[in-house]
């Protein structure tokens, strides 16, 4: 093969590789399933309601917008968008994902246009409260976590892997819809947050 053609073939091969696998940005490349198998926006629809215990911490109660005690309906959380991370306290992928989820939380809290609109909670699938507390302490988790030892929420949300991230839009009439569902961890916090903002439509509403 002439030298010039070899170069063209190599160029085409590299371009194809980058196109298919997204090069260093697999989150933008759903075609490359072996590199990235999450489903960032699938399974949209009605979000089932469930209750959680009100956190003991004053700061966490304030974050969620509660002052009382006892269980609360997740739909009562004061936010327009709720991000739920379903994790396993003993799941190594969840340990790996923790700093990136914290990064999302900090980015939200650092933006005046998002701070009171977007909240994050974590639900510890098949984890006891003791194990969830350990996870929170060791991984320095900044947002409220809850235990789902008896798999009630896991079944309601059809979770089959951890971590799973769910985006829920809370409408003014109290109704809720799931607009985001992702199996697997992420490492690009700003991209994750941009996706949440874009798919929830919260930015357009703010304008």
């Amino acid at each position, binding site marked *: 093969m002439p030298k010039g053609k070899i170069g063209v073939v*190599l*160029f085409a091969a*590299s371009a194809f590789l980058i196109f298919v696998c997204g090069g260093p940005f697999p989150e933008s490349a759903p075609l*490359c399933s*072996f590199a*990235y198998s999450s489903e960032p926006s699938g399974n949209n629809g009605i979000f089932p309601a469930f209750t959680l215990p009100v956190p003991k911490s004053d700061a966490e109660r304030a974050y969620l917008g509660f002052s009382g005690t006892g269980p609360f309906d997740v739909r009562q959380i004061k936010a327009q968008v709720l991000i739920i991370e379903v994790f396993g306290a003993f799941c190594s*992928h969840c*340990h790996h994902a923790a700093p990136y989820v914290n990064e999302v939380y900090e980015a939200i809290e650092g933006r005046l246009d998002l701070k009171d609109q977007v909240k994050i909670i974590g639900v510890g699938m098949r984890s006891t409260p003791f*194990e969830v507390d350990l996870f929170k302490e060791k991984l320095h988790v900044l947002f409220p976590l809850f235990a789902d030892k008896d798999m009630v929420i896991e079944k309601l949300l059809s979770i089959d892997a951890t971590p799973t991230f769910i985006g829920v839009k809370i409408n003014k009439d109290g109704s809720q819809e799931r607009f985001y569902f992702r199996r*697997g961890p992420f490492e690009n916090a700003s991209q994750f947050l941009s996706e949440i903002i874009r798919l929830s439509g919260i930015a357009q509403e703010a304008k």
Partner: protein
Amino acid sequence: MSRIGKLQWVLLCFLGIAIVMTATAVTVHGQAVDFQKNIFPVGTLKPTDSILRVKIGDRAPNFSLPGVEGGRVSLGQYLGKRNVVISFVPAAWTPVCSDQWPGYQIAKDFFDKNNAILIGITVDNIPTLYSWTRQMSSEKLWFPVVSDFYPHGAVASAYGVLRSDGTAERALFVVDKKGIIRYIDVHNINERPPLEDLIHALEEVNKDRSVEVHPYIYSNSSCPR
């Protein structure tokens, strides 16, 4: 160097960079998700499938098994020095086990506080355990993982936790510094033992108090003792 030659070099460099970047992305982003994909779906199994050969108060059968990090690990080496938690799990690359030892990885403080070491045992061979444990955590596991592969399951058999299919039960034994078994949890193989139960047992053993055993621990066992 001819003009075509320079072009080829540029293209080759471009291809090289693309391959390295893509491979890096696949490795970094794909590893965690792929790890989950690699877990073999075993379905729901018979909760327990063996007959215990030891009981609380017995001297723990000694063993010396090859460790993933090289060398051998024996129960006897901790005699008089540390309390020992022996964690048998059924097999590498199976669902619940893959979420059990990573939890112990973040619970080291509790073991340290109670002067205890953990030994993880499966009936898998060393290469399998090597690749499995390497993907379990970004950091090296703080506790030794040993192979009870050959003679197959000999240690599991000595404790009476070798199942009929050649895997081990999901079982925890706490052995005190004197080498006496103080706590046994042959758990439902389909579920992960709650961490707090083990921690509570360790605290009691470390205070040299008897451990109250939860009724459910033996409720599914073939041989309540």
